[in-house]
């Protein structure tokens, strides 16, 4: 019996990397589930190629899944990893630079053949060199897995497809995770020898860790002290989908989702489509234009209407969104942003569509824009968007991104009662008075939502310039000016009903870091790091990008310097500068990857060290 030492760690980041067909995303997800159940705070970052099966063993086909878990509160998937599990040489080569110095690297030694080294672009075997700088552990994953599955009626190919679970078993042992959730999941997913094979190799991986001399130490990461409650893991896309379903429940009106498949937004359509028993209708349209159009048609007919897409598809919807502005119908248009322009990098993240959302339609076409900041926040943001759309009778744009879409975090399941009910109220006939489709609620300027099927409210709406109140087509100059002003004022007034932005950290001082959307984790972590080092840095993160919360101008003015990190070329910074005449400094990154905490910390240091 080998005695092994147990080392307590507070904070670990690991990455699984292999071919896109090796099951890295699945392995990562299952490890994440076990880690969540162990009570750690965690943050994940799946990074995979757009190709479904790129040529095996090449750099182009490398798929990675990173998980950061801790006994403390964490906000990002971590800048560097403590452990890399590389299934082949290409996965090693593509990911080595992110392993911290002296970190552990577990490789599938069976895959280090001359041929696969060449395919990965290595001119010589990297192992000798790596062993001097890292804790390199060579595990013959392929052969150990085949051995474990000996006797089952599986083809060699089928056996090899199980080897990710061998690695998962090994990692579960290494970090003291249970494997119960994975075993449950496997039992629900597979049958017969495939099930048996996966279960067997999972346990074999665990046992291998226990018995081999390769790992003298294993680790424990105590559970994090987080707010009491019931938790689950959630990704941004699942949270969006559930937010859509929840909005229908809270507003007591059926949901219609029109969409055309596009990476990385499709999972939202898939997830909502599973929940027909909530009365939701999903419509896979022939294109993005039809998706938006059908959705507005459903809104006209009285459903809670939502359309979802990503950059290229979102842009196709802009004309239809402009019509929704003109006819003042409630619509939620979600854009899970990805790296562009054009097809760009479909699986990579970016925040490039902020200005396109605010200004991307022809003429003056004001639309509220909201952005969730964490995977779980996607749920609440989409519910707020629906309520806003109906209360103000306007389309509302929600900007998620590829990072939020696929990243998972532990999420405290909200009390349904706390979500706030806001049942939809449709217009009905008011005595004998003639129905006026553009009469307005004085406070919000919202027009009535009068739906077909309601006697006495027959009326026509359309994209032509119209007269207020009656909706009659009028082309007069004064009328046009009036309607443009009115639509602008309606959206501007939304600022009165959204909460003021709250500063984290000192209320005033030398530096404020302002951000929006999916960069929140990296910014918070960077600001915390600076604060722990004794520096005074404040931070504010915006969910409401149009209109801005009413206190933003005054708030920015309380700081000597303002830094705005964004995964674009400074779009929010441009808006803030234009709107408030404040010298906001943009910190821009557009590499398809999220911010690293260190990058923002460095930028903060640079600014604090600049004396002007």
């Amino acid at each position, binding site marked *: 019996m080998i005695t092994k030492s147990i080392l307590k760690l507070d904070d670990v980041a690991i990455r699984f990397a292999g071919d896109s067909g090796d099951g890295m995303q699945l392995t990562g997800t299952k490890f994440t*589930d076990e880690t*969540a159940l162990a*009570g750690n705070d965690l943050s994940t970052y799946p990074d995979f190629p757009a190709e479904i099966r790129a040529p095996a063993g090449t750099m182009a086909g490398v798929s990675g899944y990173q998980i950061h878990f801790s006994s403390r509160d964490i906000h990002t998937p971590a800048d560097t990893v403590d452990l890399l599990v590389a299934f082949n040489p290409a996965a090693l080569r593509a990911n080595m630079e992110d392993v911290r110095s002296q970190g552990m690297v577990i490789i599938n030694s069976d895959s280090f053949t001359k041929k696969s080294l060449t395919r990965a672009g290595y001119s010589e075997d990297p192992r000798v060199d790596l062993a001097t700088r890292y804790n390199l552990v060579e595990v013959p994953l392929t052969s150990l897995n085949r051995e474990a599955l000996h006797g089952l009626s599986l083809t060699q190919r089928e056996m090899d497809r199980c080897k990710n679970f061998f690695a998962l078993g090994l990692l579960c042992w290494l970090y003291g995770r249970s494997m119960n959730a994975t075993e449950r999941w496997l039992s629900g997913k597979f049958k017969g020898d495939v099930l048996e094979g996966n279960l067997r190799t999972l346990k074999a991986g665990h046992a291998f860790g226990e018995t081999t001399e390769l790992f003298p130490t294993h680790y424990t990461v105590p*559970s994090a002290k*987080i*707010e*009491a*409650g*019931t*938790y*689950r893991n959630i990704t941004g896309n699942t949270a969006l989908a*559930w937010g859509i*379903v929840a909005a229908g*429940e809270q507003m007591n009106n*059926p949901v*219609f989702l*029109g969409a055309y498949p596009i990476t990385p937004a499709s999972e939202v359509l898939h997830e909502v489509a599973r*929940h*027909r*028993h*909530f*009365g*939701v*209708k999903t*419509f896979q*349209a*022939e*294109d993005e*234009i*039809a998706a938006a*159009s*059908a959705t*507005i*048609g*459903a*809104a*006209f*007919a*009285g*459903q809670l*209407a939502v359309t979802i897409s990503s950059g290229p598809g979102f842009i196709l919807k802009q*004309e*239809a969104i402009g*019509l929704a502005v003109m*006819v003042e119908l409630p619509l939620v248009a979600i854009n899970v942003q990805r790296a562009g322009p054009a097809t760009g990098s479909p699986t990579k993240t970016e925040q490039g569509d902020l200005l396109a959302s605010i200004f991307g339609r022809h003429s003056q076409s004001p639309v509220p824009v909201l952005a969730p900041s964490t995977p779980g926040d996607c749920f609440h943001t989409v519910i707020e968007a629906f309520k806003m759309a109906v209360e103000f009778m306007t389309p509302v744009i929600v900007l998620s991104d590829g990072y939020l879409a696929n990243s998972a975090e532990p999420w405290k399941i*909200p009390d*349904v009662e706390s979500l706030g009910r806001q049942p939809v109220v449709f217009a009905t006939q008011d005595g004998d008075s003639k129905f006026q489709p553009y009469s307005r609620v004085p406070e919000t300027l919202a027009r009535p939502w009068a739906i*077909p*099927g*309601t*006697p006495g409210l*027959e*009326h*026509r*709406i*359309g*994209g*032509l310039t119209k007269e207020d109140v009656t909706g*009659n*087509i009028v082309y007069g100059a004064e009328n046009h000016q009036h309607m443009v002003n009115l639509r602008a004022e309606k959206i501007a007034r939304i600022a009165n009903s959204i909460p003021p932005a709250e500063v984290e950290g000192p209320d005033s001082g030398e530096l404020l870091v302002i951000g929006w959307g999916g960069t929140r984790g990296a910014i918070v972590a960077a600001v915390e790091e600076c604060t722990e080092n004794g520096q005074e840095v404040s931070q504010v993160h915006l969910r409401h990008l149009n209109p801005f919360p009413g206190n933003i101008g005054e708030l920015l003015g309380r700081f000597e310097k303002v830094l705005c990190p964004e995964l674009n070329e400074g779009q929010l910074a441009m808006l803030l500068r234009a709107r408030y005449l404040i010298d906001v400094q943009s910190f821009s990154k557009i590499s398809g990857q999220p911010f690293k905490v260190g990058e923002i910390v460095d930028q903060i240091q640079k600014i604090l060290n600049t004396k002007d």
Partner: protein
Amino acid sequence: MAADPVPKLTRKDFVADQDVRWCPGCGDYSILANVQRVMPELGVPRENIVFISGIGCSSRFPYYMNTYGFHTIHGRAPAFATGAKAANPDLSVWVVTGDGDGLSIGGNHLLHAIRRNLDVQILLFNNRVYGLTKGQYSPTSELGMQTKSSPHGSIDHPIDPISFALGCGATFVARTIDVDAPHLQQVLRRAHQHKGTSFVEILQNCPVFNDGVFSEVEDRKTRSETALVLEHGKPLTFGSAGQLKGIVLDHGVPKVINLRDEDDPVERGVVVHDESHQTRSYASALATLKRPDFPVPVGVIREVEKACYEDMLQDQVNHAIETNGPGDLNTLLHSGDTWEVS
């Protein structure tokens, strides 16, 4: 339970309080008047009727109907109608489009609305020219047509709306004429009766940019020679006494034969019109009939049954509720692996 009685309505109940702004002499006036005349006969409460249009002269139509109406964006009316009908299958949804709106910018949406077979009526006003943008050639314009944008003649081969609809798998396809009131009304009634997408091409004159394009069939004097009036179960004959003609199919290819007044057309091999062929080949052959070699078929070309999108969608919702019970948000949020932190 007895249904609420539908109050007796007249044509006037369907006339909106807006000034009609088509050019004098436009075929759209006649179409509007006939649609308004047919509406009260349909037995549909006015509040359940929705007219949805895209952009173009024809697409101003909803503003003039005292029903629910939505003038949307160019080419996308079938998509808006899809959403409205899928949302509320009880509505009687009418799409009004034109040859440019429906077959050029909106060809894709027309295709998909038809293939999904939503129970909506699609009226395509075909004047073979762009009117609202002032006279450019349209997808149905003849090859060689000289317009402002084709001063040397159009080099686009025209598309035939009927063939297009049949190709999309339309379950109801008909053609009628703007000024032939009884025929137009009859086709509208049939279109409404049909469960599924009803595609109706209405030949329509544009007196400003393409005057007389359908004068042969619009003019009563020449109509009997130039139009083939289709009636289910009746032989395909046309022409007046002494000059009767019939359509036969020779190896599947339509041909015109001369008939004597005393001939039994069926014995002579003239095709008997059958709207209900499951295969599209017969209807597609009819759709190839064109002037000047053939008369223009008018009437119901095809009517078959197929499941409707909105019904299947609603069935899926109902089935999911029956199987899983009505959705419970709390159950959804707690589904899968959860853990307690105390």
